[in-house]
């Protein structure tokens, strides 16, 4: 009995004590695709400069990230550095005291006010994350398939549909690699990708914020109608096709077009054995202004409860340098630095995405700023609603009109724009 008890005691002690030599910082992120880049390039570069700090990149799949992160923060199990979504999601984390104030972090002046805008308080006084990158939405296409089938890169919506029809008729390839199982890609890579051309980018987004435009208006209904019209060109069983399935389908060369954004460049260039091309969202008539979603997407904040604030700040400070900007933008091609540093991008596709900024007008996703605050009682917010209805519209289980009404009804319930 005594022996057993002492064994038990020993086991408990053995379990609860860990050796600690070096400070370890854990980075929470939803970028599971970047695991290798962090492990092989970013972290070694940092650890070379700060040999007594060890950094671990610990991503959670995108669709689960926020839920898992929230639960970890709630329980105090979150990592030291937290990858922050733009606007309200992170603002709420800051307000609840989970994210530390980084306003005085040296190096913060390397970012413009616009770059910081997604991670500041409403009054603009406090910054709570170091902006990392923005991403640009658009379409990838398989150049080999286009050449084989003699297809032109579409500029207008009509041409886009003709291309889809031609690929479908040929029968060897799936016209669009996309599924609705994870739901977020229909909202993010569908709705927010092609929508800005309909609601005229910032103009439409600001109108929603002011309350002068509604989701039941023509531009939004039209966007859902266009999404619904893609359904016949999606892979078989697309209702159960997940994001990773669609990525794989495209990189295996089995699909012609993939609606996405610049963040896919790295993965696609690594995996695809064919020539990749990109084009911006098609417009109604040739010569119309193209509106692109150039989304301030990703930043890194510090867990207010971290046990190693000094080391965490050292990492964040390093992230404001041109060394990091250049390393990151080139390692993770398609994530464009938000800093003022002049860096050169080596990746041609990344440069092409970037060149759209000169010819097109930029906006951000319309559900991110203010409109997704919701009533904070656990009812679905605007972003969740957009996931649900966009997927349902593409699945054919909801009409665009029903989608608009549902989204607007939920919004009206709590959102009272200042008149």
């Amino acid at each position, binding site marked *: 009995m005594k022996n057993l008890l002492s064994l038990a005691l020993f086991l408990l002690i053995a379990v609860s004590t860990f050796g600690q030599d070096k400070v370890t910082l854990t980075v929470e992120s939803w970028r*599971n695709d970047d695991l290798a880049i962090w492990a092989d390039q970013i972290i070694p570069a940092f650890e070379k400069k700060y040999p007594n700090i060890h950094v671990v990149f610990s991503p959670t799949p995108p669709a689960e990230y926020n839920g898992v992160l929230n639960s970890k923060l709630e329980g*105090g199990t979150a990592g030291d550095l937290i990858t922050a979504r733009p606007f309200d999601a992170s603002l709420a984390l800051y307000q609840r005291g989970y994210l530390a104030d980084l306003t005085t972090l040296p190096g913060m002046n390397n970012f413009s006010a616009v770059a910081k805008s997604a991670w500041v308080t409403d009054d603009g006084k406090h910054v709570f994350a170091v902006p990392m990158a923005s991403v640009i939405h658009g379409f990838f296409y398989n150049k080999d398939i286009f050449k084989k089938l003699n297809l032109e890169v579409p500029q207008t919506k009509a041409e886009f549909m003709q291309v889809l029809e031609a690929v479908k008729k040929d029968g060897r390839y799936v016209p669009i690699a996309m599924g609705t199982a994870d739901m977020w890609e229909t909202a993010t890579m569908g709705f927010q990708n092609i929508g800005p051309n309909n609601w005229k980018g910032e103009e439409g987004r600001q109108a929603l914020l002011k309350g002068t435009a509604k989701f039941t208006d023509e531009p939004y209904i039209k966007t859902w109608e266009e999404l619904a019209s893609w359904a016949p060109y999606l892979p078989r069983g697309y209702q159960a096709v997940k994001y990773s399935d669609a990525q794989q389908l495209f990189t295996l060369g089995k699909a012609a077009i993939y609606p996405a954004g610049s963040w896919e460049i790295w993965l696609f260039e690594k995996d695809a054995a064919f020539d990749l091309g990109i084009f911006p969202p098609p417009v109604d008539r040739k010569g119309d202004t193209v509106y692109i979603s150039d989304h301030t997407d990703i930043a890194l904040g510090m867990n207010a409860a971290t046990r190693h604030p000094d080391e965490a700040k050292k990492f964040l400070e390093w992230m404001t340098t041109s060394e990091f900007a250049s390393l990151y933008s080139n390692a993770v091609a398609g994530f464009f630095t938000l800093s003022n540093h002049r860096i050169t991008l080596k990746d041609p596709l990344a440069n092409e995405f970037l060149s759209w900024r000169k010819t097109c007008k930029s906006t951000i996703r319309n559900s991110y700023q203010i409109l997704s605050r919701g009533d904070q009682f656990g009812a679905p917010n605007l972003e969740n609603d957009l996931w649900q209805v966009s997927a349902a519209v593409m699945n054919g289980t909801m009409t665009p009109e029903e989608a608009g009404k549902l989204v607007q009804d939920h919004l009206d319930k709590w959102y009272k724009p200042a008149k």
Partner: protein
Amino acid sequence: MKKAGKENRSDPGTGKCRLYFTRDYFRKKSRGLGKHLLLIFFSVLALFPIALIFMNSFKQKKFIFAHPFALPNAKTFSLVGYHTVIERSNLFVNFENSIIVTTVSLFFILLFGSMAAYALSGYRFKGNSFFTFYLAIGIMIPIRLGTASLLKLMSSLGLVNTLTGLILIYIAQGLPLTIFILSNFMAQIPGELKDAGRIDGASEYRIYWLVLPLVRPALGAIGIFTMVPIWNDLWFPLIIAPSAKTATITLGVQQFLGQFVSDWNAVLSALVMAVVPILLLYLFFSRQMIKSVTSGALKA
């Protein structure tokens, strides 16, 4: 079975059965065959998904898609998935954590559980019914519903991201059913045995120690109903101890699958590596486990 029943001319109206000599040798034989076929069908159904994963984890990627049902051969064989898992994953640390959490939890569940069961089944005292009922509530009400406050409790005790936190929860979670099962077993132990001990002047603690080995047959049932859920739990590792250092195998695999979702070789290999240990353990102990369950541990 159905067919055979149809041909038996009984009288369902009156509910009386009469003797008919219709069940000849051949029908019996074919019915036996039918039973085997049904059992084989369900066994294959149970086995096939696991076998499929196992087979394909040893193939090159293109053959996984091209010939999913073919066994790996010299031409299609590949271990690339296992290389990825070993290089990129934390699965060995995860294994260690799972083994520590499961064995330590089980040890205390058995120790505390058998002590309580011994007291409840061996002595009549005021409050016996109360404690029996109180300790049985947990069989029906899942501990998960208290997650919110458990998390707060653990964080105020400084036990988040520790295996100790997980172990304490699992002990609390495992106790009700263990006490229930062990009480049933201990109640079957003849009282003379204990009385003989008492006449010899043994203390109550000593008698407990003598009784303990006699409940060994119950361990299988406890293994199935207590240990397996701990090993397989995703919820508490995800919420209480998600750090890389403390992640258990179930959480580790879940995260690995999320990160390597498009690397099929790695995914299949990780699944196999997570499945094999628990399957081996099960196959090794299954006879004992099932015997123990069916020996009346769960009789109400």
